[in-house]
């Protein structure tokens, strides 16, 4: 794991600066810079790491808020295996994450290719396109609830114009997750677009010139040249999307609180519902630990795959 997830997005720039930064004159050593970094590190780790150890300890206890605390060993974890609601939450999380990663990746990449072209008002239109990403999620959720309304909602009206029968959207257990993933797609495709657009901006021109001479079609050029070259950027977008989709909370919670029934209760929502409305801190903490391990584990695996791919590419270049 390295800084790469962040700075790789500005890939070319970072590579350039690391080559330059090794100037030979009176160089400061790393320890000269620790005082600059330490306060921030202490703050972030004390707000996250210390409570995190506390969570692990809590997960080993039977503890309803307001009641007494009993040491319970691994019984909270054992309970996970027989908890059907937990099993449903896992499946719903996977379902949601697949949709809320796949759709934004495809649409965002398409958008990047489009916004890479030069056309009038490109800056303004790109600004409009990224507005959903910056808008306050709860404010967005509220308007989506109204738009999804089966009788009064504007979405069913628009569907009726093209002859599609009305949908129940977030009000039916069958369609609630795709509907929520639709909002996430609308909101976060722009981030994929920005990341991939950064990749497109860094492309060399030579391969296209020679392909042009060979008489390649646009699709061939995209498929054979562009796509492989922007793959590392799509990978970064994929990693970020998976992490964020797994952790999605605001939109789902504001719109359905996990309902109807438990149909949209992802792990994150189940965790909240257990710890807060039900005040079951012990079991809630066990859920938190499991959820944390899944998120961190997946992130590490994806980062590792990305690193390996990078080395493979470097190997091929050399």
């Amino acid at each position: 794991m390295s800084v790469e997830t962040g700075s790789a997005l500005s890939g070319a720039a970072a590579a350039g600066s690391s080559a330059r930064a090794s100037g030979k004159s009176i160089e400061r050593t790393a320890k000269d810079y620790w005082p600059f970094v330490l306060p921030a590190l202490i703050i972030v780790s004390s707000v996250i790491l210390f409570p995190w150890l506390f969570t692990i300890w809590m997960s080993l206890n039977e503890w309803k808020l307001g009641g007494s605390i009993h040491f319970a060993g691994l019984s909270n974890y054992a309970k996970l295996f027989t908890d059907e609601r937990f099993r449903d939450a896992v499946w719903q999380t996977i379902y949601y994450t697949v949709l809320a990663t796949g759709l934004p990746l495809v649409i965002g990449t398409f958008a990047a290719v489009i916004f890479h072209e030069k056309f009038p008002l490109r800056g303004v239109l790109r600004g409009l396109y990224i507005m959903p990403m910056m808008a306050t999620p709860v404010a967005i959720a509220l308007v989506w609830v109204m738009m999804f309304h089966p009788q009064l909602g504007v979405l069913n009206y628009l569907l009726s114009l093209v002859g599609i029968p009305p949908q129940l959207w977030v009000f039916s257990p069958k369609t609630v997750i795709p509907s929520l993933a639709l909002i996430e797609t609308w909101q976060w495709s722009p981030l994929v677009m920005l990341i991939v657009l950064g990749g497109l901006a860094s492309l060399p021109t030579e391969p296209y010139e020679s392909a042009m001479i060979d008489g390649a079609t646009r699709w061939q050029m995209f498929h054979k040249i562009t796509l492989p070259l922007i793959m590392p950027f799509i990978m970064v977008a994929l990693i970020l999307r998976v992490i964020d989709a797994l952790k999605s909370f605001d939109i789902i919670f504001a719109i359905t609180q996990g309902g109807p029934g438990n149909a949209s209760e992802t792990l994150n929502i189940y965790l909240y519902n257990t710890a807060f409305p039900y005040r079951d801190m012990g079991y809630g903490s066990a859920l938190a630990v499991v959820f944390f391990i899944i998120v961190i584990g997946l992130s590490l695996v994806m980062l590792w795959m990305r690193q390996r791919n990078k080395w493979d590419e470097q190997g091929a270049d050399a």
Partner: protein
Amino acid sequence: MTGRSLLSKISLGFAVFLLVSPAILFFVWMLSLSLKYEIDNGAYPPILIPAPDMIAWENYTNVFSSSNFIKFFWNSVIVTGSATLFALVVGVPAGYGIARMKATKAAVVVLIARVTPALSYLIPLFLIFQWLGLMGTLWPQIITHLVITVPVVIWVMIGFFETTPMELEEAATIDGANGWEVFRHVALPIAKPGIAVALILSFIFSWNNFVFGIVLAGRETRTLPVAVYNMLSFEQVSWGPLSAAALIVTLPVLLLTILAQRQIVAGLTAGAVKGG
């Protein structure tokens, strides 16, 4: 040849239209909902533009006169403002330090903040703040919002300092400046544009945050997103005033996005961070 290029222009235009229209449609509809009376908001087929004498301006005045909206607005300003300012104070030097010593390990801690699900550390924080007797105050939210703002600032500043030249700093060192003086008098003045980007992004992500508030805010200490959520779930739903409130909540962010679009895009692609 010209026929073909015309065709590709049309298809490009169509693709742009397809991409941008869901965003435009949404925000226009949001505005429309907020300016209509209940009778128009409940009409089928839906009414996009109400008749001139049916524009419900009082939806907006109602938001400010009823409930504690101004108080919640002020809570949001305090929480986001404090968390952002504090994050700049500790995050800008940290970004500088990490960029200069290329400390990938230190950056990992920041990365953990990006990856960790908020709810996995909010449960104990909720209990700790309760024991400390801080729950009726804004402190729990200010402190937890640092988990969003500090990493955002650090990431943006690492990206920024990596691209600023070292020559001036080396010259200052030769002239006998110590590390702090080099930072204060050489690096910091150059970093102003980067700091502006960090400030904007940190503000937006903190302003938008919901999950910290829903766990840590009390009746009096709600921030705007929590206040809007409560209107949505607990009060009798009347869409006009509710949409007006929603629009007011997200307006500062939308204005910033329009005004500082270039900086936001630069900052996002350098750091690619999303709060929560």
